[in-house]
Structure formats: C-alpha cells, structure tokens
C-alpha cells in the first residue's frame, strides 16, 4: 500500500504512539493531503486544524508538494527557549 512516512515528536509522538508514522496517502501529494490522511488514524483527533509541517527541514505550507523521498515532519507547537 502506498504511504508517506511522517516524523512525529513530543505530544504528537505521544498521541500517535510512534515517532515514525506511515500515513496511507500516495506521493506526490500535498502537505494538506498528508495531514488529512493522518486524521483518520488513531490519535489523529489530537491534531489541530492546521498543524505545522516541515518538508526536508523547511517550514512548508499546506499546498506544498510532497515527494516519496522527502523527509516530512508534522510538528507540535514549538516551545523552545
């Protein structure tokens, strides 16, 4: 089955019970499509309406295209400092 692997951290890793989540969506697709597909997985109800996403270590917009080789991270509200 086609999937995109998403990195998770902190409260999102707790919510989904994993740090690397296989999201059932076929690349290339948009960041928004990856997030939408995550909502139907266990823990997906804990995502906010528009979570932060980084593609290849760069903050990315919902319409950004994701390739199968990209590193995708769905990121909880940051709280460094």
């Amino acid at each position, binding site marked *: 089955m086609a999937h995109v692997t998403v*990195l998770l*951290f*902190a*409260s999102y890793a*707790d919510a989904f019970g994993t740090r690397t989540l296989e999201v059932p969506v076929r690349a290339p697709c948009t960041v928004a499509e990856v997030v939408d597909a995550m909502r139907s997985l266990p823990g997906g109800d804990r995502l*906010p309406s528009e979570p932060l996403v*980084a593609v290849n*270590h760069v*903050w990315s917009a919902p319409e950004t295209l994701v390739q199968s080789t990209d590193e995708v*991270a769905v*990121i*909880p*509200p*940051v*709280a*460094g*400092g």
Partner: protein
Amino acid sequence: MADAAFTDVTHAPLDLGALIARVAGPDAGAIASFVGTVRNVHEGRAVTGIDYEAYEPMASLELARVANEAVARWPGVRVAISHRVGTLVVGDASVAIAVASARRAPALDAVRFVIETLKVRVPIWKREHYVDGTRAWVDPTASAHESAGA
C-alpha cells in the same frame, strides 16, 4: 574572532562565557547576551525540571537560519547561540545567546530578535515535570501564560 554566526544544539551544559568569547573582538564595543533558565513555577504549579526534545537536524538548521537573519538585519554583528536538549533541572540554562557589535543598539536589538524568533521557529519542545510527579508537554498556543522556560 569567529564567523559571524555560530549555533549549536547540544546535550551538554551551556557556557555563556564561551559564547561571548566567540563573538568578542577588538572591533566590538558591546556584547549583549541572554540566558534562559528553567524556573521553579509555571502557572502556579511547582516545576522540578523540564525535558527538552528537539527535531535535531531541523532545529540546528533553523537556529543557524535565525542567527544568519540577525547578521543580515544588523550588519557587522556576530551572533552565537546554543540550545540545550535533554533533561534539565531548575536553574539549568536551556538557551544562551551572545551578540557582539561595534555599538550597543544592534547588539541589544539582535539578542531580542534571536530569542523571540527562535521561540516560534525552532522545532524544540519541553515537557515539564511537576512536583506531584506528573509531566506535561508545554503548548504555548493553548496557554494564556508562558511556560517555566524563559
């Protein structure tokens, strides 16, 4: 004198003096700095420590981007930033920033820019440990107040 921007994400204790030494130089008349430390209370709850977790490769890159933006915005400043990750106790420094410049205003302005910007852009999270043994991730977007970090 070092490059105009030094940044790192580290598991080791922070050393502000070492960061200051990185940015100091005979052309610098002003060195402004900032240290964020774990404090003992957050929204009325006693805090004993904080786990700092980072998306390390991106956090390192984003920290460097913030430093380089400061250098672009205040030409001539030198910036050094270290962010610690791992489990810290009350009083430990979580972030240290030093900025040198010929004059004081750019150094003071750039330090403020760096701390404000890294807090919203660098993928680092903190889980507070409360005195009752519970732990919780800090969500600045869900809280009217800020956390026990700086």
